[in-house]
């Protein structure tokens, strides 16, 4: 029986892998095409718009693509934004306007679409959008300053990342309600369709993550761990789509997820866990005073590592792919030296494909690691009392 089970699992692995591969090639071809177009068009656009933008801040937009502004271009691509920009053709931007929700003492609560910002001045009413942040303007149109710094309103906008997260929300809901429907329709029978794609993953989370780390408590935490795993994974994957947001590569997102892990871990911590932190048994009293602060710090370092790990892995992947592809434009010197750009593309494109494949792997691995470590921390916080 064991053998049959592993055989079935192996089959699924192969099938999943094939699916990933197909998905990857498909999405990458888009990424490449869009990447080229977007870069090319934006440079054209910026050259055209140069004359009537006399005070525009973005250095790279004024000078085209150079080694000097490469990093700011890449950072701009992986940062959050108030609108979802897909690509631009000529001077036309294809982007999804998103709701901006801001609150400030001066102007109260305000809600409007990001498309309300003027395309050139980036100003709407008393708000100005600057590098993805909104600053307040005085009634006369000058920037509001306090202690030499621009004043930001409380910004609860549905940004690109939030929108992408909502997309992930919908995808997760659609997929898993349909999976659940499969189980309701065919109780006790072999899974079918999407259900059979997801079942091994669900079993993986339950049997390889929840059970080994949580022991007999596993059933209580399995739903949360499943959601965590699929939420991170789907967001990682969505982040790899061309023109998509970089949700899990944003520190606010990973911080929230890590914070929830921290809360769940410590809320479920039992007496033995707290004893080990606050009065470690079996250690000479003077040493305890050294150990206790270390233990208390470790409560926070563990989720902190979770936060940084996910953020850094996803962001690094995006930056590397962007950098490799940027080399093409860097060497072509903005179309002045097409031959060099073309030549470099022979090296960068295959390498970018390789990295993209790696990123698909990383997307799954990081979701797994985050979930695994969360399960581990919860498990450590509720050890058996006899320990």
């Amino acid at each position, binding site marked *: *029986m064991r053998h049959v089970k592993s055989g079935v699992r192996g089959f699924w692995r192969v099938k999943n892998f094939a699916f990933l591969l197909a998905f990857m090639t498909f999405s990458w071809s888009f990424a490449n095409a869009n990447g080229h177009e977007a870069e090319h068009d934006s440079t054209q656009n910026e050259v055209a718009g140069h004359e009537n933008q006399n005070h525009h801040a973005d250095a790279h937009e004024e000078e085209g693509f150079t080694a000097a502004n490469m990093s700011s271009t890449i*950072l701009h691509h*992986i*940062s*959050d934004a108030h609108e979802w920009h897909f690509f631009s053709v000529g001077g036309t931007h294809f982007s999804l306007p998103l709701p901006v*929700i801001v609150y400030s003492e001066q102007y109260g609560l305000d809600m409007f679409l990001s498309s309300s910002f003027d395309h050139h001045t980036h100003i709407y009413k008393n708000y100005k959008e600057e*590098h993805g942040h909104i600053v307040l303007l005085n009634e006369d149109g000058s920037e509001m300053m306090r202690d030499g710094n621009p004043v930001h309103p*409380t*910004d*609860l*906008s*549905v*940004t690109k*990342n*939030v929108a992408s*997260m*909502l997309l992930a*929300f919908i995808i*997760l*809901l659609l997929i*898993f*309600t349909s*999976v*659940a429907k499969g*189980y*309701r329709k065919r*109780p*006790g*029978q072999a899974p079918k369709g999407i259900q059979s794609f997801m*079942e091994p993953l*669900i*079993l993986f989370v*339950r049997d390889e993550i929840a059970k080994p780390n949580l022991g007999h408590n596993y*059933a209580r935490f*399995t*739903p*949360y761990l*499943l*959601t*965590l795993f*699929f*939420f991170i994974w789907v967001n990682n994957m969505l982040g790899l789509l061309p023109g998509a947001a970089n949700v899990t590569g*944003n*520190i*606010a*997102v990973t*911080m*929230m*997820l890590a914070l*929830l892990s921290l809360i769940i871990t410590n809320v479920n911590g039992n007496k033995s866990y707290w004893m080990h932190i606050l009065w470690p048994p079996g250690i000479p009293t003077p040493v305890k005073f050294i150990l206790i602060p270390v233990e208390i710090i470790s409560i926070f370092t563990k989720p902190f590592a979770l936060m940084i790990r996910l953020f850094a892995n996803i*962001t690094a992947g995006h930056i590397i792919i962007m950098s490799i592809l940027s080399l093409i434009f860097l060497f072509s010197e903005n179309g002045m030296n097409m031959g060099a750009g073309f030549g470099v593309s022979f090296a960068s494109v295959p390498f970018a494909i390789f990295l993209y494949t790696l990123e698909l792997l990383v997307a799954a691995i990081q979701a797994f690691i985050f979930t695994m470590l969360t399960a581990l921390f919860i498990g450590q916080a509720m050890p058996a009392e006899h320990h």
Partner: protein
Amino acid sequence: MELLTPALGLFFWTLVVFLVIVFLLKKLAWKPILKAIKDREDSIEEALNAAEKARTEMNQLQSGIAEAKKEAASERERIMKEANEMKSSILDQAKKDAQAEAQRIVADAREAIQKEKAAAMTDIKSQVASLSLEIAEKVLTKKFEDKSAQEALVQEYLETVSL
């Protein structure tokens, strides 16, 4: 540093979206899915156990059948053996009886013969005696027809008798 500064809005929305999806998926997906998987696993386990049980039962049954067969064979053998023994004992007995009967018959016959023989001997003896007497009478009569012969014989006897 921009990258490492968490934005409050995104932080807030992540909390909202994530908690809602945790709640909704738990309600709509994980509970029914995990329950269905557990039920199926249980039923598979149960079916396997039942199959295992049926197999052991069948094995037991089979060994029972073999046992019964063996018993029947040994019983048959025993019965056969008994029958054989009975047969031979009956034959022996019959043989013995027949022999005894034969001996008895022979003995009877012998006795009868003996009796007959004795009777015949007595008969022959008496006939021989009377015959001898007759012969002796005739001989004597013939011998003692003259007087001198009679006197000679008396003389002879007298001589043999020594007083």
